[in-house]
């Protein structure tokens, strides 16, 4: 295992704990497939109620496989903890003395597509209009940057990732 440091996440899946879970998944899916077969034999023997279960158990077995795949993939590719996106944000323009608060707000939404981005841009221009002098503007710029950061942190939330 000379390449062990190169794929540490992959190696998690062959720990005793995970091997037990793999075995459990295999047994569970095989068990559900067997139950489906059992219901099929009952259905063929004349039990009409068994026809529904004949189709249900294979569906549950497929779902079991999907569940297992998702679990393994989540383990291999854990969701980024907001690190990569948060780093893209430039520090508040107002805090640096130059530029409008709109820069900071817009920097957080480079794609400029969603409704949230429109809101940010609007907020930024509104802030820029009142930009003049004094500590209040710096405070507002910092607050805008803070909101922009929060907004970008939750942007990916609630998104359906499919079978990633």
């Amino acid at each position: 295992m000379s390449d062990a440091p190169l794929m540490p996440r992959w190696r998690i899946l062959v720990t005793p704990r995970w091997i037990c879970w793999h075995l459990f998944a295999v047994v569970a899916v095989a068990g559900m497939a067997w139950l489906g077969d059992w219901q099929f034999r009952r259905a063929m023997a004349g039990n009409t109620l068994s026809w529904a279960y004949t189709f249900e158990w294979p569906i549950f077995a497929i779902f079991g496989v999907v569940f297992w795949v998702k679990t393994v993939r989540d383990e291999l590719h854990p969701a980024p903890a907001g690190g990569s996106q948060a780093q893209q944000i430039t520090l508040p323009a107002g805090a640096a003395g130059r530029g409008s608060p709109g820069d900071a707000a817009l920097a957080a939404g480079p794609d400029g597509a969603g409704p949230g981005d429109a809101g940010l841009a609007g907020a930024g221009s509104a802030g820029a209009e009142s930009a003049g002098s004094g500590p209040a503007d710096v405070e507002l710029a910092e607050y805008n940057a803070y909101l922009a950061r929060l907004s970008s942190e939750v942007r990916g939330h609630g998104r359906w990732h499919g079978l990633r």
Partner: protein
Amino acid sequence: MDADRQLALVVRAYRTMAYLTGTVLIILCFVGIPLQVFASNLIIVKYVGTAHGMLYIIYVVVAFVMTRMVRMRVASPGTVIVLLAGTIPVLTFVVERWVSRKYIDPALAASAGRQTAPAAASR
């Protein structure tokens, strides 16, 4: 469809299925099974049982999508309880309250915050 609308839609679908599956399961367990055991009347068990089986398949799929969208871990006790709740009488109602408080409401609040918080910055 953008993520916020998608989240709201999935949450609504999950709640609908949780209540529907839960209600059908209560009828099955507290009306159908006593009738089968004490009166040998199979009519409710036969039809409501089959209906629950099919509804449960939809429930599992919708609930699973919901757990993904509110960022619950896949192989966590919470996710497993949400998925199995559809087979245990009354549990869907309890679990729906719990999962709403713990995961759905924060996710919806974050989703709403994305739209309202930037507007607040102009004040």
